[in-house]
């Protein structure tokens, strides 16, 4: 898994993007993406933010075939 760094000697080494530049994007879009994943993978299963069965029934096949626990 780990691919440890080698001291950058060649000109091919990429300059890392600073964590400060990534942070605002990661916080806002990371959360947004996780909310999307929640609605596809888990809403109206074990937990429900919206009442009823509509979301669960609509994404039912996708949820099974993406490997989420469905019912």
């Amino acid at each position, binding site marked *: *898994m*780990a*691919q*440890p*760094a*080698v001291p*950058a000697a*060649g000109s*091919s*080494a*990429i*300059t*890392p*993007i*600073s*964590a400060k*530049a*990534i942070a*605002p*994007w*990661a916080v806002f*879009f*990371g959360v*947004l*993406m*996780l909310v*999307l*994943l929640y*609605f*596809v*993978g*888990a809403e109206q*299963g*074990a*937990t429900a933010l919206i009442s009823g*069965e*509509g979301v669960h*029934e*609509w*994404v*039912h*096949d*996708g*949820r*099974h*075939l*993406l*490997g*989420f*626990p*469905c*019912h």
Partner: protein
Amino acid sequence: MNSISVRALLVRGMLAGLIAGAFALAVAYFLGESRVDAAIALEETHSHDHGGGEELVTRTMQATGGLATGVLVFGVAAGGIAALVVCYALGRIGRFGPRATAALIAGAALLTVYVVPFLKYPANPPAVGNPDTIGKRTTLFFLMVALSVLLAVAAVIIGKRLAPRLGNWNATTAAGAGYVVVIGLAYAFLPSFDEVGKDFPASLLWEFRLSTLAVQTTLWTVFGLVFGYLTERVLAPAARTAPSRVANSVH
């Protein structure tokens, strides 16, 4: 590099995720749907309580529009998150170019987010799984995903720390072995569920689970390749034009 390239990579990650989702959708439709239908047919011969009366969404809609919504939204969201991870990993995990970094992150995502949790809590077709335990099964599935991802991140950090002392190969092996041991302990100590009915065909269960693996493998493979290509195109021109800019400023 600045936040403009983060935005550029995020947009491309979501686009690559959408393309990957389209490939995964084709696999899900052609490999998976027949197994879902077969499982639902078995479910209906045994009990009539599922769905209770009128159908909210017809089977046809579930297998087409519903399936497409689920897989494509998953692709875009997973692609966006993976793109942010690649943004951070670029230039930090060794001397890998954009394409190799994207491929490594996609491979790591398939392994840690899907394969490792799947080996403990495999996907179940309709008719398999006790509705009374859905809360517990959902919690443990997401716990396993979180544990796997966090341990993989820890393994990368520890591997980087060990590299100066052990060398790259041995440090990577040691960190990988540590990941496997801790995951093995989680497999051993977290509760398991065996809720497959006695008369549910073993071959159908196997084929269904293999199709879910095919869907995820397709998604992450296509994502890694497409996103790697797009990332290379964003970052490579900057590297190529940099020397000429220097040359211009000299004039």
